[in-house]
C-alpha cells in the first residue's frame, strides 16, 4: 500500500533579549572565553534563585501571537529533571502542561504549485538554554569533555507543530518562513549554523488512507535548512525500506550525521528519560496581562507575508520573486534599499536572486555581510543603463566587486573595461570581420539569420566583449544587406 509521510517539527529559537532568562548575564555569548559569561544564577550554584526577565516573556508572546496562538493568561514554569554536564542545576526551567501559547497556525506557500498549506502550531513555550560540551577532536575520540556554561540560561522559545508536513520539502519551506517571521519580529536572528535556531523532527509513515499515526523516530542535530531536508529524506527512505521488508519501526531518537549523510540511533523509547516534571517552586505562576498581549499584537511589525504582498504590489515583481526576497528579513531590507535607489525593480530582483545569492551561498557569506551593498549594486546597474558596460561585462565586474568590495565605477576605471564608444574604431573592426567572413555574409543574404549572430560574435571576440552588441548587430545588418 502507498505510504504517506508524516512529519512534525520542534523548533527552538534563541530570543535576542539583552540579558539571559533568569539573571543579568548578557546573551551575547558567541566567541567569548568559556565560562566568563556566567553568574551564580546561570551556573546553578547552591542557593541561587531564578528571577524571570520580562523581556524574554514579551519576546515569546510576540512569537506566539505572530503564529496565531491563543495566549494562556496564566501559565506555569516546570522543572524538567535530567542529568547532563551542560545542565548545571540538573533541571531545565521549562513549561509543561500550561504553555504560553497554544492552537496557532502558519500558512506556507509552495512556489511551484502556488498551493497554500496551513500548518498547525500545537504550542509555543519558553524555557532556558543549556551550556555546551566541548571536545578535543570529536565526541567519539575525545577522552574527556569540557563544559562551557556561557550559553546557559539564554531564553528560548520552543515551537511545536502538528504533524502536518507530508514531505521533507514542506518542512524545509516552513522552516525558511518561520525563520523569516522571527527575524521580522526581531526576536531571533534565525541562524541555524550557529544554533540560534534549532530544529528536531518527528518522522513516521502510515498507510495513505489511514488516520492513525505510525511509529515515529525523532531526528536531531540538523544544523541547516539543507540538512533538515536531507536528513528527513534519508529517514523517510529508511523507514520505507524497513516497512517494505516487513520490519517494524522502533520508536527512538536518531542523530543526523552530516558527514556520512545518515541518521544514527541514539536511544530507544525504553531508554527514554523520565523527566519528572513538576511546577518550579522558585517562580510564581506566570500571569500574562491581556493588555500586554493586545499591545504586542497591535505593535507587531510587518511580517513576511504582508511584505511579500507589498513587494508584488509596489514593485510589480512576480510572486515567486517576492517570496524569495522576503524569505529573510535582511534580504528584504537589501532589496528595499536598492529599490529605493533604482526604478527597474525586476532587473534588480534578477540580479539579487541570481548573482548575489549565488555568490553569497558559494562564499558562505550572510546577506548582512555582503561586500556588495545595495548602493554598490545600483551603481553597477546604472553603468549598464548608461551603456558604459554591457550586461555580460557586468557579470565580471560583479565578481570583482564581490571579491574586493570596490565600486563598479572604480573597477571599470582601473581595468579600462568600458564599452567602446568610438564608432569609427568599431566600424573598422566590423569591416574587417565582414571581409574575413564572406561565406557568412552570403548565408545571411540567403536568409540564414544565424550567420548575422556569428558575425556579431566575431566582433565581440575582437573587442574582448567591449563592443555594444545592439549597435554592432544593427550596423553589420545594415552593411551586409543586399
Amino acid at each position, binding site marked *: 500500500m502507498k505510504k504517506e509521510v508524516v512529519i512534525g517539527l520542534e523548533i527552538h529559537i534563541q530570543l535576542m533579549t539583552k540579558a539571559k532568562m533568569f539573571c543579568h548575564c548578557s546573551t551575547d555569548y558567541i566567541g567569548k572565553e568559556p565560562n566568563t559569561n556566567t553568574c*551564580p544564577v546561570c551556573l546553578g*550554584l*547552591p542557593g541561587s*534563585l531564578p*528571577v*524571570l526577565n520580562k523581556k524574554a516573556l514579551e519576546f515569546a508572546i510576540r512569537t506566539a501571537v505572530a503564529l496565531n496562538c491563543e495566549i494562556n493568561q496564566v501559565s506555569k514554569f516546570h522543572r524538567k529533571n535530567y542529568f547532563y554536564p551542560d545542565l548545571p542545576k540538573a533541571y531545565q526551567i521549562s513549561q509543561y502542561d500550561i504553555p504560553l501559547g497554544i492552537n496557532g497556525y502558519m500558512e506556507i506557500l509552495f512556489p511551484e504549485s502556488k498551493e497554500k498549506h496551513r500548518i498547525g502550531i500545537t504550542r509555543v513555550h519558553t524555557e532556558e538554554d543549556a551550556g555546551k560540551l566541548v571536545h578535543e577532536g570529536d565526541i567519539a575520540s575525545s577522552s574527556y569533555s569540557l563544559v562551557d556554561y556561557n550559553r546557559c540560561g539564554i531564553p528560548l522559545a520552543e515551537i511545536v507543530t502538528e504533524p502536518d508536513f507530508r514531505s521533507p520539502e514542506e518542512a524545509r519551506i516552513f522552516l525558511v518562513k518561520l525563520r523569516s517571521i522571527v527575524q521580522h519580529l526581531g526576536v531571533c536572528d534565525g541562524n541555524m549554523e550557529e544554533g540560534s535556531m534549532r530544529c528536531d523532527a518527528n518522522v513516521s509513515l502510515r498507510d495513505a488512507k489511514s488516520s492513525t499515526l505510525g511509529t515515529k523516530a525523532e531526528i536531531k542535530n540538523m544544523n541547516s535548512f539543507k540538512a533538515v531536508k536531507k536528513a528527513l529524506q534519508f529517514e523517510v527512505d529508511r523507514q520505507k525500506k524497513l516497512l517494505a521488508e516487513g520490519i517494524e519501526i522502533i520508536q527512538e531518537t536518531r542523530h543526523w550525521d552530516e558527514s556520512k549523510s545518515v541518521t544514527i540511533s541514539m536511544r530507544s523509547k525504553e531508554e527514554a528519560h523520565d523527566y*519528572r516534571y513538576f511546577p518550579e*517552586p522558585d*517562580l510564581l505562576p506566570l500571569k500574562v496581562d491581556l493588555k500586554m498581549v493586545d499591545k504586542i499584537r497591535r505593535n507587531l511589525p510587518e511580517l513576511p507575508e504582508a511584505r511579500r504582498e507589498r513587494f508584488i504590489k509596489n514593485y510589480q515583481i512576480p510572486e515567486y520573486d517576492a517570496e524569495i526576497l522576503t524569505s529573510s528579513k535582511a534580504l528584504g531590507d537589501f532589496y528595499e534599499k536598492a529599490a529605493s535607489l533604482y526604478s527597474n525593480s525586476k532587473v534588480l530582483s534578477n540580479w539579487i536572486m541570481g548573482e548575489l545569492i549565488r555568490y553569497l551561498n558559494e562564499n558562505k557569506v550572510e546577506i548582512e555581510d555582503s561586500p556588495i551593498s545595495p548602493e554598490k549594486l545600483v551603481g553597477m546597474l546604472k553603468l549598464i543603463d548608461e551603456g558604459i558596460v554591457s550586461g555580460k561585462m557586468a557579470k565580471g565586474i560583479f565578481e570583482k566587486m564581490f571579491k574586493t568590495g570596490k565600486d563598479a565605477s572604480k573597477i571599470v576605471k582601473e581595468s579600462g573595461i568600458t564599452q567602446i564608444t568610438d564608432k569609427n574604431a568599431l566600424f573598422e573592426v566590423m569591416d574587417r570581420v565582414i571581409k574575413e567572413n564572406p561565406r557568412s555574409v552570403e548565408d545571411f543574404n540567403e536568409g540564414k539569420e544565424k550567420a548575422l549572430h556569428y558575425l556579431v560574435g566575431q566582433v565581440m571576440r575582437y573587442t574582448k566583449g567591449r563592443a555594444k552588441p545592439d549597435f554592432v548587430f544593427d550596423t553589420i545588418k545594415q552593411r551586409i544587406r543586399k
Partner: protein
Amino acid sequence: MTLNQLTAHEAVNLIKKKRITAYEIMQDIFNQIDKVDNLIKAFLVINREEALKQAKEIDKKVKNGEKLPPLAGVAVAIKDIITTKGLETTCGSKILKGFIPPYNATVINRLREAGAIIIGKTNMDEFAMGSSTENSAFGPTYNPWDLERVPGGSSGGSSAAVAADETFVALGTDTGGSIRQPASLCGMVGLKPTYGRVSRYGLVAYASSLDQIGPIAKDVTDCALVMKVISGHDNMDSTSVNLEVPDYLKSCQEGIKDLKVGVPKEYFIEGIDPEVKGALDKALKTFEKLGAKIEEASLPHTEYSLPTYYLIATAEASSNLARYDGVQYGYRAEEYENLSSMYQKTRSEGFGREVKRRIMLGTYALSSGYYDAYYLKAQKVRTLIKEDFDKVFRKYDILITPTSPTPAFKLNEKVSDPLTMYLSDIYTIPINLAGIPAISLNCGYSKSNLPIGLQIIGKHFSEETILRAAFNFEQNNGVEKKKPSIKPAKHKEAKK
C-alpha cells in the same frame, strides 16, 4: 559574668554607651567557643580573624561618634546552609566539602549592613534533613543542657551555640520545624517567618516551597531585632513578598488583652510527653492571666501533615539536590569509568543515608505514573491543611501548641528508626505547609532539667502578633531563666 552571656540588645546598648567594646565582646565569644565547643560541636567553621577585624571597625565608629547600625557588634552564627562569600558552606554534607561560595546570601548582606559580625558557620543535619543534627557528615552536635542528648535539628548547631553562649544570636532555616524544634530542645527562642517574608537567595534549597530563614535567640527581643533586619522584599527572590516590614520591637511593648487564642485539639495526641503537656497547660494559664481568651480549636487535617510533607519536601529535594553531580564543584568520586558511573559514585559516596533516603522517596513521588497518586495528591492535601488554618484564623488571632512532643532525646535513640524521628516534627510541619509564621519559646523545664518549648502560630505576615504574644509571655511566665551548665558527659571520653 563574661560578655558572651549578654543578649544582643544588651550588648548593643552597652557598646552605644561605650561601656564595652565590640572587640571585647568578640574576645569573650571566642574564649567561650574555645572553652566549650569541643564538647558542644556547634561550629563547623570559625570566622575569628574576620570577626575581630569587623569588631575593630565597629569600635572605630563608636570612637568617631558615628551613628551605629541596629546590630552593631552583635555576634551572629550562621547555619551552614546559608551561603557566605569566601567562607566554606557545606550544608553538613561531604558532597559540598570545600565549597566556598563566591557570593553572600541576601540575609548575610543585610546582617553585615546592620553591623552584625558573622562569627562562624554552624553544624546541621545534612541539607537540613533531620531533627537531631545527627545526620551531619561532620559528626553530631551535643545539647548544652545534657551532652548525652541531641540539640534537635536540623539547625542544632545554631541553637546549641546560642544556648551555650557561644554567640548572641544565630540564623537557622526551617523547612518542617528546623528552627523551632531545636530552639525548643535548647530552651531558646526561634522564629520561622511567613513564607516570603525573608529572602531565600543564598539559602541552599532543601524544599523550596517550604524553606525559610529565621533567627534563633536568647530572648524574644533579640528575635524581633534580627527579624527586623533580615525581613523584606529582595528582587533576587521571586517568592519574597513586597510588604513593608513593621517595627517588631515596638509592637512587643503592647499587651495581649483580648487576644483570641485557639488551642488545636489535634495536637494533644498520644505520644505527647506528660511534662510537655503540663508545661503547656501552665503556660496557657499565664496567657489567660494576661487577658487572652483561650478556646479549643480544630485543625481536622492535621494527621495528614506528615505524609504530605514527606512527599512534597522530598520531591522538591530530589530536584534541588540533583545539581550535586561532581561536575562543577564539591566532591567528585575518585574512580569512575564514564559519565554515568561518575554521577553514581559521586552521589553514592557524597550523600549520607537520610539524604539518599529522601532523594529516592522524592524521585519516586515525581516519577511518571506515580506523580498523580503522590505528588499531586499531596499538593491537594496541602491546600486542605492551609484551609484548616485559614478557617481557624477567622476566629483566632494566634494558636498555641507544644513545639515538640518531647524534650531533648538521647543521641542514637531515634537514628535507626526514621519514622519515630519524623514524629518529632509533628507540631511544626503543618505550619510550613501552610506557609504561616510561628515562634517557639521556652515555657519551663522537665524534672531532669531539660527545656520545654511552646509554639505560637500566627496568620500570614503576622510576625508582629506572635512576637508580641511571645514577649508578653516571656516577661510574665514566672519561669526562672536558666543557663545550661555545660558538663562533660560521664562516658564522653569512652565515646571519643
